[in-house]
C-alpha cells in the first residue's frame, strides 16, 4: 500500500508539473480536500462572494472515487480551481475522471469545468442546465473578470454530454451514484447526487448552511423540494452547496426552510394587503437578518423574486 501511494505521488507530481506550464502558480497546489465518507472527498469553499481574495473559491466541490473511475461533483468558480481539484483527485487516486456532474448552472459551481474537458470525461447536468447557462454565460464571465480579476473567456463554458430529466444512475465500478433532477427551486436545473455505498447526499445549492439562500428558480418550488427531501432515510452525510457538512438532514434543512417559509408568508401577506414590491423589500422576513451571512446582499433580491412569483399564484 505504501509503495503504491508513493507511485501515485510521483505520477501526480509529473502531471502537476506539466499543467503548471499552462497555468499560474496557484494552479500547482492541489486543493485541500478531506475524505468525509469512504472515497468521498470534499473541499469547502469560503462563505463569501467571489472576490480577488478568495479567487472564486466559494462553493463546496469534490469527488467520489470508485474502483473503476472517479466522478467529480462541481468544479469551482474558475479553471484554476478546477485544475487544483484535478490535482487533488490525482493525489488521492490514479483512476481517471469519467464524469463531471454539475449540480446547477451557477458560476461558482461550473466555471472550473474546463480543467476536466480534455479527455474522455463526460459532463452531466440536469435538463435546463444548458439553456440557463448559455443565456447567462457572458454575464458570468464578465463578473468573474471584474470581481476575481482573471481573464475569462467562452472556453470556460463546457456543453454537457448528457442532461437528465428525471433520474439516472452512473456506475463508477463498485459504487453507483443516483442523480436526481428536481422541479424549479434554487434554479430550474437543480441536480442532487446520492452515493448509496456511504449514504452520502450531495445537495448542491438546494441547501445553503449559514449563508442566506438565493432564489433563482422558484420559492414555492424550493419549499416543495425541501418537504420531499427532509424525511429521506438512510442518509448519513449531507453535503450542502455552501457551508459546513453534517449528518442530520432534517436539522440541516431547518434554517433554510424557516427562512423561505417566512419569506413566503410575509410576501404573500404584503400582496394580500395590497402592498407593492418596495414595501415587501423593506419589511419581509427581516427577523431572519441576524441568522444569515450575506443577508443584505441577497435578501432584497429574494423578496423581489418571491413577489413577482407569488403575485401570479
Amino acid at each position, binding site marked *: 500500500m505504501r509503495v503504491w501511494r508513493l507511485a501515485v505521488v510521483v505520477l501526480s507530481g509529473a502531471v502537476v508539473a506539466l499543467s503548471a506550464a499552462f497555468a499560474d502558480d496557484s494552479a500547482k497546489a492541489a486543493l485541500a480536500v478531506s475524505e468525509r465518507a469512504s472515497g468521498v472527498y470534499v473541499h469547502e469553499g469560503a462563505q463569501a462572494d467571489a472576490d480577488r481574495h478568495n479567487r472564486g473559491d466559494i462553493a463546496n466541490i469534490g469527488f467520489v472515487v470508485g474502483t473503476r473511475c472517479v466522478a467529480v461533483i462541481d468544479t469551482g468558480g474558475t479553471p484554476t480551481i478546477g485544475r487544483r481539484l484535478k490535482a487533488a483527485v490525482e493525489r488521492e487516486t490514479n483512476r481517471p475522471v469519467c464524469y463531471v456532474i454539475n449540480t446547477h448552472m451557477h458560476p461558482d459551481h461550473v466555471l472550473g469545468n474546463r480543467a476536466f474537458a480534455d479527455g474522455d470525461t463526460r459532463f452531466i447536468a440536469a435538463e435546463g442546465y444548458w439553456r440557463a447557462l448559455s443565456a447567462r454565460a*457572458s454575464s458570468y464571465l464578465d463578473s468573474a473578470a*471584474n470581481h476575481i480579476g482573471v481573464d475569462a473567456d*467562452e472556453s470556460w463554458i463546457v456543453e454537457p454530454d448528457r442532461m437528465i430529466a428525471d433520474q439516472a444512475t452512473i456506475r463508477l465500478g463498485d459504487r453507483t451514484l443516483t442523480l436526481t433532477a428536481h422541479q424549479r427551486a434554487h434554479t430550474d436545473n437543480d441536480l442532487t447526487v446520492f452515493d448509496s455505498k456511504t449514504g452520502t447526499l450531495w445537495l448542491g445549492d438546494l441547501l445553503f448552511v449559514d449563508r442566506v439562500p438565493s432564489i433563482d428558480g422558484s420559492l414555492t418550488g424550493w419549499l416543495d423540494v425541501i418537504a420531499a427531501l427532509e424525511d429521506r432515510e438512510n442518509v448519513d452525510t449531507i453535503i450542502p452547496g455552501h457551508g459546513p457538512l453534517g449528518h442530520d438532514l432534517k436539522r440541516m434543512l431547518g434554517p433554510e426552510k424557516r427562512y423561505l417559509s417566512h419569506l413566503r408568508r410575509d410576501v404573500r401577506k404584503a400582496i394580500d394587503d395590497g402592498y407593492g414590491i418596495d414595501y415587501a423589500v423593506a419589511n419581509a422576513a427581516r427577523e431572519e437578518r441576524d441568522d444569515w451571512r450575506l443577508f443584505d446582499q441577497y435578501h432584497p433580491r429574494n423578496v*423581489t423574486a418571491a413577489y413577482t412569483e407569488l403575485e401570479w399564484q
Partner: protein
Amino acid sequence: MLTIGIMATCLAAALTLHAGPSTAQSNIRSTDRAEVAWKALRDEHFGDRPIVDGSDVIALDAPDQAEDAAVVPITITDKRADTDRPSIERLWLVIDNNPVPMSAEFRFGPAAASATIGTRVRVNTYTYVRVLVDTGEDSLYMVKHYVRAAGGCSAPIGSDPTEALKHMGEMRLRQVRRNAGDAARSQLLIRHPNITGLQMDQLTRHVWPAHFVDAITIRKGDALVLDASMTFSLSENPALEFDARRGASGPISVRVHDNKDNTFDKTWQPQTAQAAHEEETDT
C-alpha cells in the same frame, strides 16, 4: 450598502458589467453630469417647448440602487390631483441610457382621477429616469431620479419562453398601495414575456426576437382612463398602477396590444372592482 459587485456571484443576477462598479459609476456619472443623452432626446421629442422644474406638479419615486435591474419599481404621483391647477393630460417616462430611452407615453382621459401611475421597468445601465408632463400650459414640467442598476435589458428571460407563451395575455386587476395609510390604487398585471430583443444566448449567438407589450388602453364604462404606448422597458409580466375615477360608472375594460400584433382584452364588472375598493376601505 449594497454594491453591484456583490450581487453577481451565485445569484445569477446576470448583470452585464463591462467595468467594475466604481469605474462604471464614475464613467456614467461624468457623462450624465453633462446630460448629453438627454439633450439629444429633448430636441428629438420636445423641440423648443420650454421645460421647467416639475417637483410641485409630480413626484417620482424610484430606488437609488435597484435590487433587480430587470424589475425596478417606480411610482409617479400626480400633485395636481384635487387642485384647481390645470391637470396633467400627457406624461412621458424617459430612461436616458436605455437602448430606447423614450420608454412610455401616457394620455389621460375623463375617467382618470389623477395621472398617478406605477410600473416596473428595466434599467440597462446607471441612468437618470425622468418624467415629463404636459398640463396644457406653455411649459412642460420635468422631474428626474438617478438609478444605479445594470443589465436589466439583457437579463436572461426569467422563465422558459415557450412556457411563458402559454399564459400570455392573462390579466389581473387588484388594489395596491405603497405604504400603510396610502390610498389604494388599481393595479393591472399582464402576463407577457416582454422580450427585449437584447437577450442574447452568448454561446449560440441566438437572440430572442423582441416581443413586448406596446400599448395599453384602460376604460371605465365608455370613458377613457388612460391610453399608453411603450417599449420593452417595462419588466416581464408588465404591471401598471392607475387611478380611475371612483364616481365613473361601468366596468373596467382593458385592451393590451403587443409588437407582434396580438390583442388581449379583459373586462371586470363593477361589482368586482367595487368589492375590491370596499374591502380596502374597511381595513
